[in-house]
């Protein structure tokens, strides 16, 4: 579905995307991960033929992105990172407007646009002007417009960016539904759990270069082989001095605080869980659970992109 060879884009001497080789197969939900400024959006803009590459080639849906760009655009659906709409138009008329480009007959344009907005939960709002829409509603319109031409490949640039948990959940459900319909999805994101839940394959990009392309399991195995594991602790009363003490333990590679608990990244040679438990309990914390997990995508991501940025 997507095949790139040495795809490169320079902007005034700055290399935004550097000789990328990527393959996305039909039916994949491909997660495209990378820190901010890594070249995700530039890559997407090349794949969607909005930008032409400085060098290298790519074929999307079996068509060359340069010589057959119109054919490519005909078969893809794009949801850009920050979509903007004509504020004085209603969602329904915007969708009908975009449908015109694909030669869809008039009656069908209206029917299809209304159907898609209905599915997006915008049925009651489709005739209201976009300027009255919330951020979440706009995202839904953006997804609906990407589906207006029944694309073979759906390209989503940060689809859940700026959405609250319920909104994100709805989007993930939607994307799963599309996968079940046989649509290939190329999804860029820096929300790692999302990619982990949705995607069967991931590509990681950093400084314009692909650092890894594989299934999540294969990537995880690579990490385990490098000797990392996560110890996830939930509880109350965990204080900074306790974490400092844990950090001084031999084999602790990182501490990641979350809302729900704290993740300790540890060298798998050491059995650090009891030691961490001891420090926390003696410090006065109430430890509720200690969970030893396999490496998450976040670990993979951080180990491959370096810790400099968490995206």
């Amino acid at each position: 579905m997507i095949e790139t060879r040495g795809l490169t884009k320079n902007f005034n001497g700055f290399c935004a995307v550097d000789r990328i080789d990527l393959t996305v197969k039909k039916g994949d939900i491909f997660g495209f991960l990378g820190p901010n400024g890594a070249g995700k959006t530039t890559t997407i803009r090349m794949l969607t033929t909005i930008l032409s590459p400085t060098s290298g080639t790519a074929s999307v849906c079996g068509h060359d992105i340069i010589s057959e760009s119109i054919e490519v655009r005909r078969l893809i659906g794009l949801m850009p990172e920050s979509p903007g709409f004509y504020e004085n138009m209603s969602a329904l008329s915007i969708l009908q407007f975009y449908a015109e480009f694909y030669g869809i007959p008039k009656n069908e344009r209206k029917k299809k646009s209304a159907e898609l907005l209905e599915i997006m939960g915008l049925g009651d709002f489709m005739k209201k002007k976009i300027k009255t829409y919330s951020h979440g509603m706009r995202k839904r319109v953006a997804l609906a417009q990407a589906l207006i031409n029944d694309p073979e490949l759906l390209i989503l640039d940060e689809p859940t960016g700026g959405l609250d948990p319920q909104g994100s959940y709805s989007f993930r459900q939607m994307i799963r539904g599309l996968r079940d319909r046989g649509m290939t999805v190329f999804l860029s994101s820096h929300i790692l759990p999302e990619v982990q839940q949705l995607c069967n394959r991931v590509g990681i990009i950093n400084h314009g270069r692909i650092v890894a392309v594989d299934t999540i399991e294969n990537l995880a195995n690579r990490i385990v082989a490098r000797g990392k594991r996560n110890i996830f602790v939930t509880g109350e009363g965990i204080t900074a001095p306790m974490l400092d003490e844990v950090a001084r333990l031999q084999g602790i590679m990182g501490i990641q605080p979350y809302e729900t608990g704290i993740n300790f990244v540890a060298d798998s040679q050491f059995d650090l869980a009891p030691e961490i438990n001891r420090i926390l309990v003696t410090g006065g914390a109430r430890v509720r659970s200690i969970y030893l997990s396999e490496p998450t995508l976040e670990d993979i991501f951080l180990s491959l992109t370096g810790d400099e940025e968490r995206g």
Partner: protein
Amino acid sequence: MVEEDITEEITRSGISEPIKEIPGQEDVMQPKRYPIKSYLGPLSIAKREFTANMKSVRMVVLMLLFVLAVLGGAYGISGLSTSTTSLPEVEVLAWAVLEDDDGMGYPDDLLVLITDGSGTPRPNVKVEYVDYEEDEDDVFFEGNSNSNGAVVVNNITYAMLGTYSIRVTYEGEEIDRARTSYALELSPKPAYVLAHVLDLDDDNVEDDVLVMVTDGDGIPIADVEVSLSASNYHNNGTTDAKGTVTFRNLMAGEGDPFMGFSPKKYDVEITHSGSISTNTLYIYQDDESMTSLFEFEGPDEIIYFVASVFIMMLGPIIAISLSFDSITKEKLQRSMDFLLSRPMGRRGIIVGKFLGILSAIALPVTAINLLAVVVISSVTNKSPTGSLVAGFLVYTVVFIAIYILLQQIFSTLAKTTGTAILSGIAIWLIFNMFWSLISIAAGAAMGYQLGSDAWIKMNNQIGLMNPSGSYQLALAYLLPVEGEVSILGVPGWLPPVVMAVWLVVMFLLATEIFVRKADS
């Protein structure tokens, strides 16, 4: 916590239902694909651009301004011109002689001759002899002019006192009494001389004289020498077959154009078969035409004036105001990617936008221009030249199209809408205001005198190089009379060609710059 999120989402977005799950495999529809024609994209963009512009507040404001300037200008100037220009055509003139044919000691024998403005007899016009001061209805005589245009009555019965006059009724309406020229002769003569002051050369001033020589039966006499003289004037002429001779552009008396001239007395005299006949007339200068600052010959000049003043100023403003953000806004509101990812060529986007904006402007502008032409011709009561009207309508659209493309280039290059509109206004200022400074400076450098033929020639050639100048010159060439517009140094075919070149070059530049810019 999840519950809270849902509630929050609902309140924030106003959506009562979450995204529905896509139906499963059993509901999968086969994607339908339709053939994509290259005009589809540009056409959709043009339609959207047209609708959006038509509904915009900007459009309403701009068109109100345009109506005010163009229709108001057209109406005002036409009104101005009727007060000074179109003197009504003279259809009926009466020439009257009272003489004492029967030697009774009273000039009670009447000869009335009815002609049109050129001295040709008019038969069948009703002539009455009435006492205007006592009772207009007291008609002493009534008759119709014969095939020679003459009415002859002997021994009109006089009342004891009163002022008697001739009343001439033509097509049911009484003609102006000033249109009757009298001669009072106490004894019959073989020939009578009569004179009317008219505007014979259509210069809007009644300073020409039509003299007629006729015998006592109203039969014109040809080959009579007529002398016209005043204090410092003398001229002779010979009557033609109609018995008429004309003298043109006679001077009025002393005075100045703003205060009015005093009337000047002229004496007409003939000698025929040994007898002398005389008459007197006065020339008044029509002071209204002199005090008017703007003089317009007719509807063509008014159309030209409206175009070269109001449209030349407002046309680019309308074009700039409706297209300055056509590209920047798409970029800034981030809707451009939606367009760029549609199955159409890059050029299609700018072409569609151009056509959409152009049609949104051209439609109302052409309607208003047409209305202006109607107003001008109905107020001046003259029809303008067809080719000028066609040129006015077409060139105006081309002129506006050039500015739309120019502004689209700025809109593509500029990072903000502010820069885009400022660049447009700068270009407008340069082309419409500062351009003449270039001519003046160049003229000074070349040593030409301002207003001299050499300078006008150069000024026209420099003016031709900007769209506004070529628009003005193209219209000037369609004026049937050269009038006051000097078109030295520029052949007639050139201005429309220059406009076409501007249009094509701007179109190619706008599309090319857009295609290149979209890639960076």
